[in-house]
């Protein structure tokens, strides 16, 4: 071997090592790239028509997450209608209205609502940027309108449960966007709800046959409720009337038809649908173990007596079944199949909103008329109340029966400041749920509700 050859060999060797090294480091880098097959990278989540549609669907899914079980539980077991009958102490805490800051149900509802808001914020921020011929302006507006509606609903549900909350209006892309946002007042929270509802009403399409996605009427109905909560009686009446006058909705007879499959009845202004692939097993908390349930939530003896009284409950006695110690609620009744809707807004509510708004404005005859519409549907005689105060009391009682197992009574008694008189919760601090313990620990910008 000549010297030259040797030199050549070494340089070959050096080059080979160099190339091998480069190849290896490139292949190492590639070798370590792994991406999931079930998720999209955040940066390219909403980019075209199909992901925009998927994002609003995902936002509805988030509403399902808190309305399937947690939110209606918060509105019922906290009142005199429903008592704790299970083993899980988080329900006992709610029943006793002694709610620790880490109560599982309040924490789960609070967390799920903000997850909904983050989804809605993402749709509101990114969908306008989508440039896809398959996504028409009409559809874009519909999607945006739904997102504004859902954000309004979410902040409304936070406000009436926890008081004024921190208003997140931008999607969370990193944690720095959170800094410095303090709690708003309840008025500010409700102002935000109103702003979103106004946008939603503009953007949403006119009502078609749909009842399980937001349309103009849903926005108007929620707005009627918002005005009622804010004691803006005239506005409440106006918006309630707009929905009631829509022939798409009607009070169904018998009472139980709205919660008997097939659902999406003419009673419904907005309900969330479930299916075999997307289940709602809320019935499980209401049915006894002999029917396969947990029986954690049980109608109180007082409610059972009212429902069974033909002069009060009328045909609404179909809300309960069973005998003796095992009387249970059957509003959520798709036992085993688990497809009960979440009832968000029924037309009956609009009648009672208008009744109350009218009564407050001293339009007593009109108010009684609306109240009697509800009573007549339940085969109960017309109201005997004549004075304003009596009528308002009668409307409160009617609400308690009509929406016995829906997310109403607790929030009604709190907004009318009657929770002390009716439920014996004289300490007003406990009219609001606590901000979750974990947020108190992790969020320097949040303050706890007084008394917790």
């Amino acid at each position: 071997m000549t010297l030259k050859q040797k030199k050549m060999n070494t340089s070959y060797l050096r080059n080979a090592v160099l190339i091998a090294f480069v190849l290896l480091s490139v292949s190492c880098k590639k070798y370590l790239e792994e991406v999931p097959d079930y998720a999209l990278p955040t940066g390219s989540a909403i980019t075209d028509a199909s992901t925009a549609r998927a994002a609003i669907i995902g936002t509805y899914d988030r509403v399902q997450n808190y309305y399937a079980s947690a939110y209606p539980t918060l509105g019922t077991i906290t009142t005199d209608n429903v008592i704790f009958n299970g083993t899980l102490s988080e329900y006992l805490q709610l029943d006793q209205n002694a709610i620790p800051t880490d109560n599982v149900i309040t924490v789960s509802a609070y967390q799920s609502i903000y997850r909904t808001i983050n989804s809605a914020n993402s749709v509101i921020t990114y969908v306008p940027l989508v440039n896809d011929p398959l996504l028409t302006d009409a559809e874009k507006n519909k999607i945006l309108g739904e997102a504004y509606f859902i954000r309004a609903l979410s902040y409304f549900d936070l406000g009436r449960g926890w008081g004024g909350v921190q208003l997140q209006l931008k999607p969370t892309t990193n944690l720095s966007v959170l800094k410095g946002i303090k709690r708003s007042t309840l008025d500010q929270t409700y102002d935000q709800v109103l702003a979103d509802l106004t946008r939603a009403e503009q953007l949403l399409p006119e009502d078609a046959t749909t009842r399980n996605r937001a349309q103009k009427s849903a926005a108007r109905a929620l707005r009627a409720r918002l005005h009622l909560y804010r004691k803006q009686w005239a506005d409440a009446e106006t918006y309630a009337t707009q929905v009631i006058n829509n022939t798409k909705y009607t009070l169904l007879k018998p009472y139980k038809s709205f919660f008997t499959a097939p659902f999406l009845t003419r009673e419904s202004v907005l309900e969330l649908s479930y299916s075999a692939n997307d289940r709602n097993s809320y019935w499980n908390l209401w049915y006894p173990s002999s029917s396969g349930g947990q029986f954690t939530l049980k109608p109180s003896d007082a409610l059972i007596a009212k429902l069974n009284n033909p002069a009060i409950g009328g045909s609404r006695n179909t809300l309960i079944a069973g005998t003796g110690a095992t009387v249970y609620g059957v509003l959520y009744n798709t036992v085993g199949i688990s497809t009960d809707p979440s009832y968000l807004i029924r037309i009956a509510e609009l009648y009672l909103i208008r009744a109350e708004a009218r009564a407050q404005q001293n339009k007593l005859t009109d108010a009684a008329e609306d109240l009697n519409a509800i009573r007549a549907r339940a085969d109960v005689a017309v109201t005997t109340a004549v004075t304003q105060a009596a009528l308002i009391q009668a409307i409160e009682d009617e609400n308690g029966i009509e929406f016995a197992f829906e997310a109403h009574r607790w929030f009604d008694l709190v907004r009318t400041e009657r929770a002390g008189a009716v439920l014996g919760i004289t300490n007003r601090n406990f009219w609001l749920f606590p901000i979750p313990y974990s947020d108190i620990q992790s969020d320097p910008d949040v303050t706890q509700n007084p008394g917790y």
Partner: protein
Amino acid sequence: MKNLYKKGFYLFLCIVWSSIASAQQVSPTIKSHLNGIVLDAGTNQPLPGAVVKIRGTTHTVSTDSDGKFSFVTGQSFPYTLLVSFIGYDQKEVTVNGSPVTIRLQETLNQLNDVVVTGYSTQERKYIAGSISSISGSVVQNQPSGGFNQLLQGKATGVQVTTNSGVPGGGITFRVRGNNSINASVDPLYIIDGVFVNNSDPITAGLGNQAASNPMADLNPADIEDIQILKDANATAIYGSLGANGVVIVTTKRGKRNTKAAINLSTFQGWSTAVDQFKVATGPEVALLTNESRVNTAIDNGLNPSTVVLPFPDPSAQQTYDRISSLFRTARTSNYELSTLGGTDRSTYYIGLGYLSQESIVKPSDYKRYSGRFNYDNYLTDRLKVGTSINFIRSDRNLSGSDNNPTGVINSALFPRSYLPVYNADGTYARYGSFDNHLALINNLDSKALGWRTIGNIFGEYTFLPGLKLRSSWSIDNTSEYDNSYSNTLISAGIASNGSASSTENKALVLTNEQVLSFVKNLGEGRKHNVNALIGNTINTVLNQSTSASGTGFAANSLKSVSVAATRSGTASSAETKLLSFFGKASYTYDGKYTIDGSIRADGSSKFGTNKRWGYFPSGGLAWRLSQEDFIKNLNIFDELKLRASLGLSGNQNGIGAYAAQGLWSSGANYLEQPGIAPTQLINPDLTWETTRQFNVGTEFTILKKRLQIVADYYNKYTYDLLLNVPVPYRSGFSSYLQNYGAVRNKGFELGINSTNIQTDAFQWTTNFNISFNNNKIEKLASDISLGASGRNISILRQGYAVNSFQLYKQLYVDPQTGNAVYEDVNKDGQITSADRQIVGNALPKYTGGLTNSFSYKGIDFSFFFYFQQGNKIMNMNDFFMVHGGTQANIGFLPRQLERWQQPGDITDIPRLTTYSGNPTENGGAANNYGGNVASLSSRYLEDGSFIRLKTLTLGYTLPRNVLTRVGVSKLRVYLQGTNLLTFTRYGGLDPEVSSQSNNQNTVGYDWATVPQPGTIQIGANVTF
């Protein structure tokens, strides 16, 4: 990736090929014949497998199964033989003719043993790291499936808890404490060079209890020995995987030139509950319920005489016993058949095992079928190839016995005892949320069938004496097939008319490794000992899961998902990769001074694009003072070594495969349309959690090697924790995985082996070990509360140890009012969540074991105590069943009878009431069982310290002369008791319990859990 494997494979083939080609045989000149036998000097038993070498040559043979050997050699007499055998002192014998008898003295301690350290073997005396070695016999013939749970109390620095008495169920295994919070705290298990998967493959929900111990798949009978690498010097070579310690298991292999030995062993065991649940009788429950009703009326300002008592005559109530039908005498059967041996070129071990074990609480059980084949072949003098293959089938009947009203134990324990088990029409009666326990026992049908293959093939090529290249290809393939059917006789199936689910979980771990190692004694007098290696690893982990479920069946005998009326399915897959390069060098001078160092670089696909690679160096020093004249002159120490080490190791286990990526997950569907929603925030800087560990230790033997002591102190600091930092919920997320926080573990370990009496006929040895560990969270973003189904009884808080309990500290029950009074931590005069405080911890201050073994002629007797001290247990059974009347569907434990009844009563159980007014009032009735305290009172937290007689064994080995006539070389029969005695103040059934073990941060709960059984077993081992 495929390419890399392919390249490696071609390389390997090339080496095999060239070495076969170069193999040549040379016929020698014969100058002498030598026959001999090697015996144990103590017992005069032959020693098969001893290595006999003619000094100054490479000519080496091994003794056969009768301890015999022979040489046909070119050497002339006299020449010197070097005779060695693991566990015996090496001996030099000059021979001047045939035959010859050589007696080897057993080494009284393990200091001279060869120890498997990271990727190499070293003599224990030179090692600077901290390593515990345990012989396989320690974990054999025990009525437990997993070898790792049997290490409890057997090794220093290791804390083992069997979480429940369910056979094959989950265990907690920690080497020197919890290093992490969200990443894994389990050690790396390596079996014959295979990195094995240790994640529980069973999906069936058992109420947060780990369903299985994946290491129970390994048949303990196959194990030769176990090494536990504890300090940074020992573990750093495993870099990213070693921070939680490494458990290296070596299984049995045959020895060259030995005749086949066939071993047959069996044992039969009978287990019972040492203690069974006790509940208040029907009249007692009625009495307590009345009292609660009256007290509540008084608290509400009502006249008690107006109360309508639910039980006008409590004594008229019946008592229906549910507990006794829950328990049974559980059978355990174990059979093993194995053979090992070797020819001049190859060795083999074949082992077959069958274990069947019932739980003492019906209906769960566990069966394991295992087969192992270990084979090595010296293709040429330079090339050795080998394989280890292990097939396991595990078969479990599961019972969701925890934490669930429809679980077996809860359904028997919680319902009120005056309620009949059956309805009047003979059907199963159910109350409130609870199912009927007999319905469950008779109808539960949840089976987990596991198939696992752990295999390895390797080639080892010796270029020069001392310079070897080893290439190894490993697979650990787990396939878990879970089938569960709830028929219409149990509450889970009533509503849906039968519901079934079928899930297959597959976990595949592929590992390829190349290691080039160099071991040499150099220089004058061979004073320089060098042990060095470099290598690389390519590791892929693929997890796949497919599951189908269905509801609505035509009949209870139809269970297949395919015939369900409504069906749904899901599938998922995740893959992670790890690429590593490593090197290690150790240098010893004159057998006295050792210095070593190692470094490893790891790249993981789990981490952020910015910080994928981590580098983990370590170094150690060892000084054998006993080789120094000034120590020798003292005439005290037979061996004395000081060692110290410092290094880094990493952790990436326990986080998701795509944890660093910002993700919008699909599946957020509505109205049968596909939906997406944000689920994870991006963290491009996510990187390795790193543990820095300092260790200093000593090992010495005195009194003519009769007393051996090993002591270590360590200080581990884990930083850049892979922490799910809680973020404000308003972000739309609950946590963000980032490198934040630090945990420190420091501790002291002491192990003592003593040979108290050593005569030909009688021997008595004692082994004692104790390990102290102190854990502290040094840095944390904010408190993290968790555990007990949202009750947040466990807390992680800076300045405190992990696994702390936060409760309201009950000071006393006011003798005047009977109401509980709690410590008002912030002194605002109210009891609110700010008054919850850390009142204890589930981690023991120290754990240890004491073993005494005696043998007299053929009789052997031993007993083993395990102890742990200083840990607390949250007694959830008391939490639920000492409820003061607040739980209308739950009965009472007898402890409720100790409640306050009248002024002057001194007790820690407050007055019964369900009053809920003024929930913030300290000493108010609301906080007795409800209110803000909501029963989260320290009165349910108990001391969990205990000392337990784990095993007691009496055995008899039949005399050899009797046996040889019937062709048996060894026969031992024995009687053994397990968990015979326990000394504890704990009020629950069993202080060794951890019901919420699925999460490493919720340790120390006792919640409707199967207690550890007491077992009596008989067994026999026969060798032909």
